[in-house]
């Protein structure tokens, strides 16, 4: 057991650190959920891609470095430590790309991956529906087979990045007679296709971070089905693990925030705010550190060919509650100044979504209880 990096990994870390130090914008970019901010973030993705930092774990032919999982986590730690911008291409790179690599055809890989790596095409996730929140298997939007492809109908909601994105991906019910989990098909489609209506929804922060999507006889060719028709549930479940587990919330982000929290604590001179928050400052740092070390354990397991399985749910509850705790503590430290909009208030509002999205924490706790602890399934009507 050790936590030491190899000379090769250390060299990779130094290269990443040096590049980030020289390239990360000095001023934070405007919110990616505004028109200007979206473009600014795309330009940042392009800059990352030109230096081959946008998709370090991908094969070189698609713009990556073929980096190991360990190196990927090292890069993520450096990325957030450097205060680099959030990734507007996150849905595509971390949720869709693994599916395209595993289930996509060569044609799909060549059509979709390069422009995803450069940030030219931004992808939005279209999973949730108005009547299907945590119960994803109850999706009702339909796909009807026609000559050469499918017609999509129905409605998706809470579709992240969809207000400005170019492409969407999601599940549609292609066989209404099949049981809940069966008869779903995984589709990719342009958001400007005929019959698609995008209605942006302002989030708590007032920006259009997500959107409703309406489908009215939207034609999608067979070539844009991911995996086999009817096999969408199985295909999609391999991304659910990614979202909850490692890929979306690398520990670097929380460790960087914990460091900023300590800086804030050290800078606050009000004895009342300091005394009343000291315990929570320590505990927030501690939980970020626990997450960092936990992730190295996960990486070791995965690198050894293991599977984290339902442990992604353990992870998700932890990081989402940690994120809220970090930001609530920071606002309490700021005292009356906390009412003024700042990166802390932005981060706080974003953190509030964590326990809700990617499967609510209630669903995650059920998964932990049933799949890890082996408790009986709840009786469901």
């Amino acid at each position: 057991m050790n936590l030491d990096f190899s000379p090769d990994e250390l060299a990779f870390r130094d290269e990443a650190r040096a590049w980030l130090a020289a390239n990360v914008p000095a001023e934070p970019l405007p919110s990616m959920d505004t028109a200007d901010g979206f473009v600014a973030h795309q330009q940042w993705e392009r800059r990352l891609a030109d230096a081959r930092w946008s998709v370090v774990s991908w094969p070189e032919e698609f713009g990556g470095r073929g980096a190991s999982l360990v190196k990927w986590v090292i890069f993520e730690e450096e990325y957030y430590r450097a205060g680099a911008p959030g990734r507007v291409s996150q849905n595509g790179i971390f949720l869709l790309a693994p599916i395209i690599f595993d289930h996509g055809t060569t044609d799909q890989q060549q059509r979709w991956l390069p422009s995803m790596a450069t940030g030219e095409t931004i992808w939005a996730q279209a999973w949730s529906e108005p009547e299907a929140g945590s119960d994803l298997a109850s999706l009702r939007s339909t796909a009807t087979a026609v000559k050469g492809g499918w017609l999509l109908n129905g409605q998706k909601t809470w579709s992240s990045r969809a207000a400005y994105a170019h492409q969407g991906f999601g599940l549609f019910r292609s066989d209404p007679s099949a049981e809940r989990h069966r008869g779903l098909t995984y589709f990719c489609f342009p958001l400007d296709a005929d019959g698609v209506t995008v209605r942006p929804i302002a989030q708590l922060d007032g920006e259009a971070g997500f959107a409703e999507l309406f489908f009215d006889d939207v034609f999608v060719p067979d070539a844009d089905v991911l995996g086999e028709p009817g096999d969408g549930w199985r295909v999609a479940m391999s991304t659910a693990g990614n979202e909850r587990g490692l890929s979306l919330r690398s520990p670097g982000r929380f460790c960087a925030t914990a460091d900023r929290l300590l800086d804030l604590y050290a800078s606050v001179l009000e004895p009342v705010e300091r005394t009343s928050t000291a315990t929570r400052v320590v505990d927030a740092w501690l939980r970020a550190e626990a997450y960092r070390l936990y992730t190295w354990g996960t990486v070791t397991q995965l690198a050894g060919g293991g599977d984290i399985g339902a442990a992604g749910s353990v992870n998700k509850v932890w990081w989402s509650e940690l994120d809220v705790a970090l930001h609530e503590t920071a606002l309490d430290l700021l005292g009356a100044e906390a009412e003024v909009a700042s990166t802390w208030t932005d981060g706080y509002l974003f953190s509030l979504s964590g326990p809700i999205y990617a499967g609510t924490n209630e669903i995650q706790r059920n998964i932990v209880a049933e799949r890890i602890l082996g408790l009986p399934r709840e009786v469901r009507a």
Partner: protein
Amino acid sequence: MKFTLTDEQAGFARSIDDLLSRADTVAANRAWAAGDHEPGLKLWSRLADLGVTSLATEASPVEVCIAFEAIGRHAAPGPWIESAAYLPLALPGVDLTESRATVAMPYAVDADIADSVYAVVDGQLHSAQATDSSPGIDPSRRLFAVSAGDRVDHGDLDAAFDLAALATAAELLGAGERVLADSVAYVKQRTQFGRAIGSYQAIKHQLANVRIALDFARPLVFGAALEVTPRSVSAAKLQAADAANLAARVGLQVHGAIGYTEEHDLSRWLLRTRALQSAWGTTAYHRERLLADLLAAR
């Protein structure tokens, strides 16, 4: 970079767990609490044969943590932290592998069965004599006041303290894991309103929280074992104490009133967990030390 146990370490973990699983450690714990040391001392010598008393000097802190997690999981009695974690580093020239020793911190645990008793006075180690005993919240940790005698030559007491606090964290982790396992087993067989109580979300979510807390305490404990520093040790002790306390509280809640009885085995771990939260640096102490360390590094 490889942050999991090596095959050899996993093998050691299995052998110590097998040994303790085969022994009736709960009976030894109960007898010890009642003043009958016989079964506990037998257990002591078997663990010593396995090398537990020489880990602090002959192996790495990772092996120390493996052993103490097993001791916690099985509620084995005896001054293990004092004799096998603190004093071997505090007294580097003294061979403690074949004897039992204890040290007042501030009470000398199990001084009545120790071959030698020590006390720390003004940062120096002294030999000591046990005087009065006080009942403890965990009756299997018998507490003694001491009167200090002559100063003895000692090693790095800070390093000794950190290894002892780390061993305590590992023992808490083991206790938490045991309470969770026993609670899960219980809620699967206990029925109410016609079904197992473990099928109710109110029960499930509490136990899931325990699983999550323990899963994130473990890497802090073993991370600290790889690099023993005041910062890493305090972090490990804090999180392990919190996770074990959550396990104990939830364990008691899901057992209901049977868990609140002395006769139910759960009591062994509930009392041990509470005692160890206060031992080898209270939660407040470690939190204060961690914050000071973090701020000093800024």
